[in-house]
Structures are given as structure tokens and as C-alpha cells.
């Protein structure tokens, strides 16, 4: 894993992002802009399932119409995220918040698989029945908690100082000098 991180970091794109001043903050800003868009979609979906917001709309309407926009925005977020992580791959290998964030994203994937059949594809049934079952509300609440956790862990990444003594200084002296 560490070897992989060191290798990724030395690829051309990762090196350029790390060593130039502008690409990193620009990609980070785009990462956050897309996250904001995704957050709106996630929030509305979950609040609708909880019966808190958009109560006039059928649950299925909200979930179905946002399915593809969400997928596209997720793809953009992940693309930016991979570029950011690859540029500092070795550092992130030692970053506890990075791994916390990845674990939470893993849990979100499990959450999606666990509730997909019983909640997210059953929205039309909830609308016909006129009530939202407890399981769907649980799924929505868990989703909100997990995503807020991802946001906090993501911010935490920047607070961990890179362990300079462990990094391969001879491989990339420039990033060590910059200290970031």
C-alpha cells in the first residue's frame, strides 16, 4: 500500500499538482463546489424520507429525479478527490483523518447496498401507502450522520502534519521543503 502510494505520487499528473502553486487549490475548490451540490441533493432526499421537507412531493419523485444528477456529481467529486489524494499519496497514507474518511465512505457504500432494495427502490410503494416506514427513516438519518462525518473527517485531513521523517525525502525534495 505504501509502495503504491509512493508510485502514484510520482506519476506526472500527481507531481504537477503537488509542485505547482495553482492546481491543488483549484481542484480542491472544485471538489468542494461539487460536494455542495451533492449535499443539497442528499439533504433533500433524506429530509423527504424523514417527512420533514418537501412533503407535498411524492418520495419517488424526489429520489428518481435526483438519481442521475447525484451519480454525475459523485463522479466529479471522486475525480477531483483522486487527483488531490494522488498528489500527496504518501502523506495521506499516514493521515488518520484520510483513513477515517475512506472508512466512512466505505460505510456509505454498505449503507447504499443495505437499503437499496428495501428503501430507495420502494419509494413508489411508500407513496401509495401514504406513510414512510421506520426503516426508511432510519436509512435517511444514518445517511445524514455518515455524510456529515465524511465532511468533518475531510476537513480533518488538512490538520495532520505530514510525518517528514517517514517520507522519502530523496524522492521528492520539493514537497518536503514546502512542508505542505
Amino acid at each position, binding site marked *: 500500500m505504501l509502495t503504491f502510494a509512493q508510485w502514484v505520487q510520482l506519476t506526472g499528473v500527481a507531481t504537477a499538482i503537488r509542485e505547482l*502553486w495553482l492546481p*491543488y*487549490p*483549484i481542484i*480542491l*475548490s472544485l471538489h*468542494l*463546489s461539487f*460536494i*455542495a*451540490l*451533492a*449535499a*443539497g*441533493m*442528499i*439533504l*433533500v432526499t433524506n*429530509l423527504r424520507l424523514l417527512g420533514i*421537507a*418537501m412533503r*407535498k*412531493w411524492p418520495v419517488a*419523485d*424526489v429520489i428518481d*429525479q*435526483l438519481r442521475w*444528477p447525484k451519480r454525475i456529481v459523485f463522479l466529479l467529486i471522486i475525480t477531483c478527490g483522486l487527483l488531490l489524494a494522488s498528489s500527496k499519496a504518501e502523506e495521506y497514507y499516514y493521515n488518520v483523518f484520510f483513513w477515517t474518511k475512506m472508512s466512512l465512505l466505505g460505510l456509505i457504500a454498505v449503507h447504499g447496498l443495505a437499503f437499496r432494495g428495501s428503501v430507495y427502490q420502494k419509494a413508489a410503494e411508500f407513496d401509495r401507502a401514504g406513510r414512510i416506514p421506520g426503516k426508511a427513516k432510519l436509512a435517511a438519518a444514518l445517511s445524514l450522520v455518515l455524510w*456529515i462525518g465524511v*465532511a*468533518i473527517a475531510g*476537513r*480533518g485531513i*488538512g*490538520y495532520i502534519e505530514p510525518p517528514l521523517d517517514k517520507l522519502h525525502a530523496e524522492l521528492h525534495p520539493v514537497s518536503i521543503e514546502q512542508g505542505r
Partner: protein
Amino acid sequence: MFLAETNPLNDSALIFPALECFHIVGFAICVGTIGLVDLRLLGVGLNRQKTAELAQDVAPWTLVGLALILLSGPLMFSSDPDMYYLNPSFQIKMVCFALALIYNYTIRRRVALRGGTGAGAKVVGAVSLLLWISVIFGGIFIAFTGQM
């Protein structure tokens, strides 16, 4: 006024990161809910809903996000006022934030509530998205222009 040296906020290393978390969650809620309406104006996403009703439905949540931003932001600023005040990214961010906020509650609000469609509505939605994205860029760049 607060000075960085006498500000009790700086007594604990945990307060600033905690404020940042509120700021980030707040901005995600605020910009996210505004973005839903902007995307609707652009013809993406919740198209089965009327723009006006979507705008009214998400408006309280936008305010929740704004409240989190406006509570945490000035406190973060107070932790090191000189650094922020002199930081060009921060200055740009504040100008963009003021513009985005005014635009949001005047032109964009009127167009969304009128349920506008067509090219005009698309432009209004796109301008709104661009304004908020420029606020985000300004915010991120604060940390990257500070060391110059």
C-alpha cells in the same frame, strides 16, 4: 474589537477546527439547497416540481445553512483578524459572498418565484451557481495565499 492575542477563541486548539466544521456543513446546506433551485432553473434535476414551489420548500433550509455560516464565520475571522483582513482571497470572498447573497434574495428569488423557464431563467441559475462557486474558491484560496 477582538485581537488575536486576547481572543479566548485561541485558548483551545480545538475551537477553530470545530467552527470550521460548522462552517463547512453550513455552507454545504446553504449552497446545496440554492444549487438545487439553480439546477432546476437550468432544467436539471427536480423538473417535475414547479420552480416556485421548490424554491419555497428549500428556502428554510437555506436559512439554516446561512445561520451556521454567519455564526461560525465571524468567530473564525476573530481568531486572526489581521491575517484575514489583509488576505486578498478573503477580500474577494467577502465581495462575492455579498454579491451572491444580494443576488439570491433579489433577482434570483423573483425569477424562481415567477417560475421562469427558457434562456432567461437558465442565465439566472448559471449566474447564481457561478457566484457561489466563486465564494468557495475565495474561501479555499485564503489558506493558499496566506503564506505569500
